[in-house]
């Protein structure tokens, strides 16, 4: 479903801030896989997701989504294949527009937008039903401006928007990191529900090792712009945080120093 072939990306080349974020990254994700991604700060997790999404172009390598080469495709054209949820709850929605308007925007992803109505009465009913599933009471606030919602509500809505038109690949970039633990758990629960319901191929970055183990059916760990650990199937089910730390030390030859990954 997703093939990353030998990706390279260097930020600020030729300056003192030069940073090689992707260093020959290769990854192959099969249809229906739910992959969790962990790694320390600067390991290249978000860079990998942004490379897939097309936020900028990679320096070298090839990106294929469902066999289609998207390496040179601009961000808004790749959006046809992708559903995205970001770390910052503010980034995924249009704050000055209503809940229903945001959903209507997402519903038309990949479609040429011309002079047809931006939202129809039938859609409103559809959105009301969909919002009920979230269990956050948003179904009664269809016309409320999204800027009035809490971070958790906005992330849940963004998740709904990302999956409203079934994406070939769902990209979750630490989408619960900015939420309090209880809300984060709720949003993760909704994530699991939607991913299982629609059998979505998913790539989820998380800072939290427990979440990475608990969710999904494959786990990869990144360091210095490459994948250093790839665990799936039965082996992943038996995994513990302790195992992960041991594995990390064995593979990288250093201590895992990221506190938030341990404590989260």
């Amino acid at each position, binding site marked *: 479903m997703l093939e990353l072939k030998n990706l390279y990306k260097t930020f600020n080349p030729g300056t003192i801030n030069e940073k090689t974020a992707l260093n020959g990254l290769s990854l192959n994700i099969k249809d229906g896989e739910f992959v969790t991604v962990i790694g320390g700060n600067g390991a290249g997790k978000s860079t990998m997701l942004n490379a897939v*999404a097309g936020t900028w172009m990679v320096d070298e390598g090839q990106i294929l989504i469902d066999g289609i080469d998207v390496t040179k495709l601009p*961000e*808004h*054209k790749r*959006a*046809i294949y*992708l559903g*995205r949820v*970001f770390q910052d709850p503010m*980034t*995924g*929605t*249009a*704050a*000055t*527009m209503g809940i229903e*308007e945001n959903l*209507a*925007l*997402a519903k*038309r*992803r*990949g*479609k040429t*937008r*011309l*002079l*047809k*109505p*931006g*939202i129809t009465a039938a859609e409103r009913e559809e959105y009301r039903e969909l919002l009920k599933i979230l269990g956050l009471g948003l179904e009664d606030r269809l016309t409320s401006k999204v800027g009035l919602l809490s971070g958790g509500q906005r992330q849940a809505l963004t998740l709904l*928007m990302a999956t409203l038109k079934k994406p070939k690949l769902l990209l979750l970039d630490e989408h619960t990191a900015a939420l309090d633990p209880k809300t984060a758990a709720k949003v993760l629960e909704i994530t699991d529900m939607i991913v299982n319901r629609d059998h979505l191929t998913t790539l989820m970055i998380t800072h939290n090792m427990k979440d990475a183990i608990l969710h999904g059916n494959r786990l990869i760990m990144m360091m210095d712009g490459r994948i250093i650990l790839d665990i799936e199937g039965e082996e992943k089910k038996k995994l513990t945080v302790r195992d992960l730390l041991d594995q990390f030390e064995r593979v990288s030859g250093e201590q895992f120093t990221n506190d938030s990954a341990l404590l989260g």
Partner: protein
Amino acid sequence: MNIMNLINALPGAAAQGLIWGIMAIGVYITFRILDVADLTVDGTMCTGGAVCIMLMLSGWDVWPAMLAATGVGMLAGLMTGIFHTFMGIPAILSGILTQLSLYSINLKIMGKANQAINVSNFDLLVSLRYIRDVPFWRNTIFIVAVIIVVLIALLYWFFGTELGCSLRATGCNPGMSRAQGINTNFNKVLGLMLSNGLVAFSSALLTQYQGFADVNMGRGAIVIGLAAVIIGEAIFGHIFRNFALRLLGVALGSILYYLVLQVVIWMGIDTDLLKLLSALVVAVFLAFPYWKGKYFAKPVKKGGNANA
């Protein structure tokens, strides 16, 4: 200070306010919806009039001439849009560049710094002379009011379509828009074209109203447009929630601006100072949201009400 002088001047001020109201709606589209301060309008506010007057002097009818003026205004917006999106120049600088080039273009269109048109010899839609003693359907205030209502209806419809919604999203959150498959660069260019088309249309009306086009007639237009937007929002913002009503508020803001201007002139102020005053008033109004957040923020109550 004869009060009758003031009262006699008010209908003219209202007509001028209405004509500038169309221009202010154009500014609203860039400033509020696209979140870009587009300085192109200082040039477009002359270009529209220049095109209209030259076409009419060469024998065109008024409506085709105004449509052509609108089209040329849209081209000015396209130029700014290309500077901004394709060439990566910051929006405000892109507008300044187009504005400067329009100065030359306006001179070339008119052949000299100004051109006059006589209402007695040409069939103009609006004029200073059509304020009093004409049937109401020939009255400039009535005609421009109808045009504004039609324009607001059209814009209300447009911003409710798929394309219009995507334009609003582009201004609100470009990153999210691209993630939803919206071509934000295209939408920015489209918004700039729409805005400058309206400004040029307003300019074509203003030229007929005052009977001449002048290469300096657009100077400071952005400030007048912003003043109208801000006055409209400050006064009608709390009651006008609906998008169409908010556009109407902008038009009313423009009328208020011209009425206040008339009162200030009537009070005998040195008219050389008017632009300075306008700029300062707009600066203060623009500062309000910032000051409100910084100095008048309500403290957040913690742990419930202690004095309960």
